[in-house]
């Protein structure tokens, strides 16, 4: 409750915080798998890495749905009144872009897999329907789309992290502590 007392505002709910950081971990996992698997020589390890990469992507897609459901039911905690309007708008735009990418990237990967003639079997249990038929030219295009969207996510996520750190370290406001309440308690401890 120290965080609440310090800012006068509540952090995100435990559900929202949990989902946010689980998705962060899954994005890093999917990236690490994606970047290494493509250069592996054809081997059982490579096939496993591809499957794990796809399972991670589908999980991110599902958790992003859950996060949007949370947002539909909850108001995110208010931002400090000292933040300029343009920054609030920029934050809203970048958040919308991040959500859009968290849907579009797994979807482009699923399309790419379908066009390559490889169905996605989520967790080895649930076979997803093929979105398009086998088509080599389309697969090549979808691969590029998947890669470009991922680098767009990388850049947007870097801006997101930089902004959060700037608020925490330079402005010393509660933008970051809303998503990391324990930092707020530590800050209280330092004072």
């Amino acid at each position, binding site marked *: 409750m120290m965080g609440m007392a310090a800012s006068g505002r509540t952090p995100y709910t435990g559900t929202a915080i949990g989902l946010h950081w689980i998705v962060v971990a899954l994005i890093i996992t999917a990236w690490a798998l994606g970047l290494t698997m493509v250069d592996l020589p*054809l081997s*059982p390890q490579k*096939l496993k890495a591809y499957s794990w990469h796809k399972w991670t992507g589908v999980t991110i897609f599902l958790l992003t749905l859950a996060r949007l459901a949370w947002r539909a039911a909850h108001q995110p905690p208010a931002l400090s009144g000292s933040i300029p309007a343009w920054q609030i708008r920029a934050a809203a735009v970048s958040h919308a872009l991040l959500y859009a990418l968290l849907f579009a990237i797994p979807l482009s990967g699923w399309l790419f897999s379908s066009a*390559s*003639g490889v*169905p996605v079997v989520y967790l*080895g*249990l649930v*076979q997803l329907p093929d979105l398009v038929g086998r088509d080599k030219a389309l697969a090549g295009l979808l691969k590029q789309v998947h890669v470009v969207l991922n680098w767009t996510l990388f850049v947007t996520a870097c801006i997101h992290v930089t902004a959060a750190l700037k608020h925490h370290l330079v402005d010393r406001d509660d933008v970051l502590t809303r998503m990391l309440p324990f930092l707020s308690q530590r800050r209280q401890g330092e004072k």
Partner: protein
Amino acid sequence: MSCVLRIALLCIALAPAGAAAQTVDFARSRITCVSTQMKVPLEAEFRRFTAQLAFDPARPETGSAQIEIELASFDIGSEEVNIEARGRNWFDVANHPRARFVSTSARALGGGRYEARGPLAIKGRTHDAVVPFTVKMDTAGNATFEGAFTIRRLQYGIGEGVWKDTDTVADEVQIRFRIVTSGKPPQKKP
């Protein structure tokens, strides 16, 4: 019934070598295999094969089949995988270019379904295979043979070395075929 037709039918009935051989229409025929990696079914086609079929649904036990598949024609849609499949660990096409099935018996199972049995040789190893199939005849005398059966790839040494692990690539591989034979029935020949 014309006299010629009657004689022709009699000849077929008495033919000791079984049913007459039929001409395969390769453009409409397909042999594929479905392997499973990480529970993901992947279909690959064998683009070149030869087949000698002789089958009369009225007398299935006289039928015979000899099918040879050129393993280098394996195509799963990825050149990287095709090259791997032709290599020593998988088909080893340099030493074993063809897979061969020769039927030794055939019988009706009822309900328009039949079954052929015989040795299936792949990569220098031979095991008996049981091949269920259906036959559809059209009025022009074309026959469509369709069926599927499962083999265990490791029995044939397909997928050696690191690929022996069946957690990644399952042991069971389904062979699917649709073979269309054209050729008018012999009795219609002038």
